[in-house]
């Protein structure tokens, strides 16, 4: 199946593609996020089939005993063709898994696709289990086991939460555009992670920090938004910052940020508070050096990719990789960029 067809897979029934991966497409029949959400856990760790798009998105900054840095990604996307779940092959819920390991010189990627309804992929809230094929993320959210394999790499990891869940935007209602597109969005940015990377050169024992994002929506992008640049930064002093910039066809941007203290207290910042500016692109034209400023917190840092070529050559391609930053603060984190293909 070719990439074009796959992208078609990810589209709703009647619409034409708009924005990155059709995420700016109008919705019909699907639920839309509303302000002042009340979350219900553990149920909300599970899927929301009446929303069109949802993900369980984990990124991790790792290092081995020698201090060599690595990045790791484990993602399960749910994309609904219709706002319901059904048994067997008739299920309109499609699942897509992406796994990656990034080193300073290499970037390993694997992708899996599956349909809901037959057991090949899915998410169960309690006891929590998210899986596609042999890839899995399972546990009680205090401790999670995670594994994935590709043709030339794999990993087995254990995660333990060292802090609370944090909610972005207004209590988890994250606005994405001036027109009011929004998603439900919360994270667990306090995971400590340890485990084994299986690489072609051999197994590597690693430890580090992981960040798990949970987000669902039906139209997360406005129809004039073409992609986003998303940052998760872990400051050496224990504070954290989630920030994103949505690119618009009119050349303007929409930004949003959440300041997370070491204790898990959050402060949301609306459009304009966070400023991001690309400084340098890689050979493919994807910005891999950025300047981030959040004057309200005295933050002015330069973010640089660990490996410029962390391109996810998957059926819906994007860039995702570990970063470090310097300036008024320093630390490490993850960068995701879409809409550059």
């Amino acid at each position, binding site marked *: *199946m*070719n990439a*074009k*067809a796959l992208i*078609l*897979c990810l*589209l*709703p*029934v009647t619409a034409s593609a708009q924005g990155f991966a059709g995420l700016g497409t109008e919705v019909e029949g699907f639920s839309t996020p509303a302000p002042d959400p009340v979350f219900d856990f553990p149920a909300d760790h599970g899927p929301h089939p009446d929303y069109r798009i949802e993900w369980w998105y984990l990124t991790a900054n790792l290092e081995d005993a020698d201090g060599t840095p690595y990045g790791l990604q484990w993602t399960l996307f749910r994309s609904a*063709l*219709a706002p319901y779940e*059904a048994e*067997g*092959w*008739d*299920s*309109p819920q*499609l699942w897509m898994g992406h796994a990656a390991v990034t080193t300073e010189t290499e970037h390993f990627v*694997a992708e899996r*696709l*599956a*349909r809901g309804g*037959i*057991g*090949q992929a899915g998410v169960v809230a309690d006891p929590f289990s998210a*899986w596609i*094929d*042999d890839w899995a993320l399972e546990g009680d959210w205090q401790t999670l086991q995670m594994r994935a*394999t*590709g*043709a*030339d*790499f*794999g990993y087995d990891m254990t995660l333990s939460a060292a802090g609370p869940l944090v909610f972005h935007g207004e209590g988890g209602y994250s606005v994405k555009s001036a027109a009011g597109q929004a998603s439900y969005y919360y994270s667990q940015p306090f995971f400590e992670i340890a485990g084994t990377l*299986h690489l072609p050169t051999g197994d590597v024992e690693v430890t580090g920090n992981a960040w798990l994002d949970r987000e669902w929506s039906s139209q997360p992008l406005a129809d004039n938004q073409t992609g986003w640049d998303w940052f998760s930064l872990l400051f050496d002093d224990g504070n954290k910052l989630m920030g994103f910039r949505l690119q618009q066809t009119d050349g303007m941007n929409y930004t949003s940020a959440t300041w997370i203290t070491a204790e898990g207290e959050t402060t949301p910042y609306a459009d304009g508070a966070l400023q991001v500016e690309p400084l340098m692109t890689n050979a493919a034209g994807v910005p891999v050096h950025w300047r981030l400023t959040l004057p309200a917190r005295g933050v002015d840092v330069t973010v640089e990719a660990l490996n410029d070529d962390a391109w996810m050559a998957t059926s819906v391609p994007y860039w995702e990789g570990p970063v470090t930053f310097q300036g008024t603060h320093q630390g490490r984190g993850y960068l995701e960029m879409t809409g550059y293909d």
Partner: protein
Amino acid sequence: MTRVAFAALLSHWGRNPVQLFTLLAGLALATGLWSGVQAINAEARASYDAAASTLDEGRYDRLVARDGAAFGQDVFVTLRRAGWLVSPMLSGDLDGVRLIGIDALTAPAGMGPVTLGGDVNLAAFLTGGNQVFANALTASRLDGVDVLISPDLADHTAVADIGMAQRLLDRAGRIDSLLVLPDQPRDLPPLAQIAPDLTLQPAQGGTDIAGLTDSFHLNLTAFGLLSFAVGIFIVHGAIGLAFEQRRGMVRTLRALGLPLRRLIGLMLAELLVFALVAGVIGVALGYVIAALLLPDVAATLRGLYGADVSGTLQLRPSWWASGLGIAFAGTLLAGGSALWGIARMPLLAAAQPRALAMAAGRRARWQMGAALVLLAVAFVLAFNADGLVTGFALLGTLLIGAALALPPVLNAVLAFASGRARGVTAQWFWADTRQQLPGLSLALMALMLAIAANIGVSTMVSSFRLTFTGFLDQRLASELYVSTDSAEQTAALIAFAESRGVVVLPIQSADVQIAGQPAEVFGTRDHATYRDNWRFLQSTPDAWDATFAGQAVVINEQLARRGALGLGDMVTIGSLTLPVAGIYGDYGNPIGQVVLAEDPFAAQFPNVEARQFGLRVPGEVAAVVTDLTAATGIGAGQTIDQAGIKAVSLAIFERTFTVTTALNILTLAVAGFAILMSLLTLAAMRVPQLAPAWAMGMTRSALGRLELLRAVMLAVLTAALALPLGLALAWVLLAVVNVAAFGWQLPMYLFPLDYARLGGFALLAAVLAAGWPAWRLARTPPGDLLKVFANER
């Protein structure tokens, strides 16, 4: 100057319209036959490619149940969850169409409906929207589903989502097989641990079918080339004659100051214009030929190899390129020597036209030399050819060598007859025939090739038919064949057979590799059916005794040839190693076979369960079928009576050669046309030679009768010479090309009556071709004959 010179050159054709027609028609016919055959080939190949790109399941390893039955889709999920990258497939018959269910999300890259466009509702395809993909022809057979036209899909094949296929085929939750994707993740758990009931079937590679169909296409191509060669003979004749007649004009043009280089350029341009015109006509003609023959070709390929070929023709740019290319190449080939002659002609020499016969003397020696060399090469190849390429090289050298040898041989025969002739008229007849020979020799060569091809191919077809019919009688000895779909049915069948005193012969097989070749092993029950009906090509005296005692095996000819196995050679099947006790003919089967006794088979393949049975029914078959259905519930669809199989097999076989026959007739027609055109061309030139005979008292009608007699006599001589050539051709086809292409040799039978009939047809073609020129001669106004003397040079 250039324009005037070009006009002068072209004026020749205005004065000789028949020559122009001959040239164009010959070239167009040659191109037409060639491009028609190419079109059929291209169409067939495009069909395979479509089938391959749609669902080339054979390209992948697959997991199937050990018993070959369908299994639950939970096995698919289990394997996926263990890390195995596999994709489920289900296929079955829906309204006579092979419906294939796939899972687009896990299928290997490139599989699935290949033309997903903007208007395709993929969500509907995936989620039970009742969507099926098929080409237009197949779509017309499917009712009650939403068929989306996908022209790249093979005929008789429809593709749907697996969930949809399960519903349409009424097989909920079941799958037939799992395709194993080529790039699996690292550290997979072993199959035996997670799905012990499945077995891995290695990819077929698709090469077997490709090899077989290639040989069919090669056959067609050979005929296309033969037809083209016949056509080029005509063109060569016409061009040679035209250039010969224009020597005077060439001399004049050059004397007037036209540079040689430009003159050659103009003549070349003239030829290329003709090639273009004739090429376009030829390709159009080829389209007609292909359109008429393609349904038969499609049926043939489907019947013989199970290869699905669309029965409809699409105009492809490649034919135009290939058709025009061959027209240009043929023209240059035919005109090259003539142009060379003009280029080397001294400025003022050759002022008077040479008689064709004068030139022929020197050419004959050269021609005979070339013929002898080619025939010598053919002779050497006959004993050494072991592949398709050398086989066709043998065919080529044999045919061209024989064609080149024809004029000198005919000349010798005529010289001999001339020496024996008594009486003035007879002597003149023979001498005049020899005089005409050079002008007719190309046409006669064409006729000989056509007759030889006819004899060769009809010998092959008839030999095949005779052998094949006998083979069917041997191999389909059981009166009734029954397939069961469960162990219970099998038990019921055996119980029923026992109660009726009917012998049941299980037909059970397993796929293995023997001597590096894919082969099927059959576990066979000891019964007189085999001993009485199977004929060995080679065997030890007690072949069946040894085989049924578990001491030996018998194998088919294909396996013997490909695996280089002879009597006494050892064959290893699993843990068993046994000698070959016999080799049997197995026509039409692409792969190797080994027959093993029932007990050792069961020991080697404990999981194979017989589901097909041959029943030796002593009395009336229909009554037994009725009772069988009543007693066991085995439906009529599960039984086949032998006569039915035989009829189907023979019908398939008959169609195989329809195409060949049609091409034969066309070739003969082209040869007849060549004779007609040669005679018409010669007619005008012959008036000066006939006028003295007329002046000395022979009536015009007597001259006409002699003309006809001459044509018949030459045709008879040519046909007589074509007979041994045709038989040699048949031998090459049966003993060399067939072995290389199919892996088995056919015994050669002779069919004198067929040859006589073919000779009759050739004669008829010659008479028809000579009739009109002779009639014209008989009607030549006496004034024209008198003018010869008035204008005498």
